[in-house]
């Protein structure tokens, strides 16, 4: 049996060790020109009271987000991210049947009747003008969550074009059958609850936020309670 003694002075072993160390060192260094990730903090979302009524949905469906009563996991965004939609101008594709457009950004998110903006039936949109470009990190959308509601053809878009004709970023689309003719989406439908629906926009730069909708399981009209945009001033 041959006893091979390991020596640090062994040339081959030493070169392997040097190469290994160098690769590890390179791997942990930032690429030239890339900045350090900004420090992040958890966003403190203010939630309305839940609505207790209706039968909780039983069962699992592939095209429906699993309903949960659990709290939402913390959502982090760069320090300084705040609500940038409050009291900003709101427009819509049709005159409201009920409520005023400004309700969508007034911070009142409860299921109470006076908080609901209602648009006519069919595909409609509601749009918030942030009045300047922001890095958008999160958007919370509340439809009417009084009872069981699943809203159809929910499409979320961000853009710097108020007409949404160019440079449109679609961050959500659950119109799987392309009823809207805006392109078929791959996102799932979801049950409304007091937590709202959180969209992670990962710092998309945009001035305008638009949400489409096309009725729900209860009625063919469209109801929006609140659109809450969280962002930071864009450096541009």
């Amino acid at each position, binding site marked *: 049996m041959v006893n091979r003694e390991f020596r640090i002075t062994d040339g081959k072993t030493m070169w392997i060790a040097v190469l290994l160390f160098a690769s590890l060192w390179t791997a942990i260094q930032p690429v030239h020109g890339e900045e350090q990730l900004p420090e992040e903090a958890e966003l403190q979302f203010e939630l309305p009271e839940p609505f207790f009524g209706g039968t909780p949905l039983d069962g699992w469906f592939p095209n429906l987000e699993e309903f949960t009563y659990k709290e939402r996991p913390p959502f982090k965004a760069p320090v300084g991210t705040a609500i940038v939609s409050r009291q900003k101008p709101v427009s819509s*594709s049709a005159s409201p049947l009920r409520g005023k457009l400004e309700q969508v950004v007034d911070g009142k998110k409860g299921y109470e009747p006076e908080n609901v903006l209602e648009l006519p039936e069919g595909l409609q949109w509601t749009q918030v003008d942030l009045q300047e470009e922001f890095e958008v990190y999160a958007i919370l959308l509340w439809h009417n969550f009084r009872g069981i509601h699943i809203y*159809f053809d929910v499409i979320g878009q961000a853009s710097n074009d108020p007409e949404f004709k160019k440079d449109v970023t679609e961050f959500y689309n659950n119109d799987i059958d392309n009823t809207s003719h805006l392109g078929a989406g791959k996102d799932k439908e979801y049950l409304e609850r007091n937590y709202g629906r959180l969209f992670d926009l990962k710092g998309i730069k945009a001035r305008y936020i638009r949400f489409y909708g096309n009725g729900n399981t209860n*009625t063919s009209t469209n109801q929006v309670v609140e659109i809450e945009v969280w962002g930071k001033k864009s450096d541009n």
Partner: protein
Amino acid sequence: MTKFPVFHVATLALILLVAAVLRFYDLGYRPMHGDEANQAMKTSVLLAKGEYAYDPFEHHGPTLYYLTLPILWIAGAHNAAEMTEPMIRLVPAFFGLGLVLLSWLIVSPIDRRAGLWAALLTAVSHGLVYYSRYYVQEISFVFFAAGLLWCGHHYLSSRRIGWALGAGLCLGLLHATKETSVLVVFAMVAALACVVAWEKFVARRAIALTLNWRHLGAGLGLALAISVLFFSSFFTHWRGPLDSLLTYTTYLNRAEGHGSSALHDQPWYYYISLLAWTYREAGPKWSEGLILGLGLIGVLWGLWGPNRTDQTDRTDRDGAIVDCGAAFPRFLALYTLFLVVGFSLIPYKTPWNLLIFLHPLCLLAGLGAQCLTGLQRAVWVRFLFGVLILAATAQLAGQAWRGSFTYGADVRNPYVYAHTSSAIRRLTERVTDLAAVHPRGDQIHINVFRFDGDYWPLPWYLRRYPNVGYWPNFPESPDADVILTSPEIAGALQPRLKDEYQVEMNGLRPGVLMPTFIRKELWDAFMAKRSGPAETAP
């Protein structure tokens, strides 16, 4: 020679035009309620096969089905697939329009202007408009009750056999329409007895109610003949007339709120609150307070007012009054009060049940409106009241319009009760689109798994497709091109399916979801036909 009342006739014509627009415009717009669908499918069997048998446990009388046939024949429909919502809803719409004319006919003898007010309020009442566009028995039931009122009043005023036969015809049709006819007849008889007693003991004058047995026999005989004709399915189902009596054991249980009927139990003030003020969730506020308020004035005037009449009391040789014209407003007030109290005391309540007293309330409201606009001395006061009531009436008409269209199937509408969600359109369009890409078209195989039987109005909406199965439990092979189910059993269904499916969520009623499984290859074929982005989005 009396001058032709041009203004009066023109006003009535205008009221009828408003009533017609509210009742006939876009009759197919609102999705079908489960009850409407149920009635429609029974009518379709009668149309296609000539089969009908009265069911004493569910459903109501036969008149609705038989009276729909002429419209379907004229429209050229031969079966369910060829029937449409507007075709069948024409029946209640015509009765609803007829009710406006009847309002004028009933109240005009008391006061001509009050007759116009009554017709106008009937024309724009949200409840009466809503159910005039609704394929159930209710509005025809109210029409026959009003017809009985009109003919009965004229008979007691004139003692002519023609009016007795008219009253008999209405009574027979009333009985053959809905089981609650007994309550209506009871309220009429009780009100008549009270009026006679009132005249005798309070007004100190006697009304002669000498019975003409020949007229009574003719009227009741015709009523019986009409009832038997319909309940026996035109002499083909002889158990029907017997069942029309035995059914009251079922209805007594239902009225007391036994079994599943307890679902419909409501407090005594339910009907009044529904009329006075309804505000549910976000949306419009609803009120027929104008009719309630004016109706209350009409009741007070009917009970204690001067009972002005265009007719002079006719007396017999003994000095007893034989013409009840003067006492008619009092009768109307008592009849309405008895109906309100009676129906409010019954625990079982549904919104459409209030129509039977909402209509006489409109008649009294016509009298109330005339009290405010016709009995004031100062012209400017009359004018002011007239303008105010007309403005409130316009608001009522707007309410009726919103209630029939924008909020026609919306839970916020006081008359929407366990109604199919307007989201049903999405489902029916989907099935139509899927059938269009299916190799066998309308032969598409659809399975419905809702074991509690809660699937109406699907049979109506899927009437074009012969291969639809409504299952009480899972068959050995539950696979189909399209499967409609409920969230509660979807979990048990999924492991039993062999094929691959696209699943989407649809709504049957608010809060009642209907998971829809679409066979994957059919879904892919459907999506392949769908166009991409287009300039059609708003």
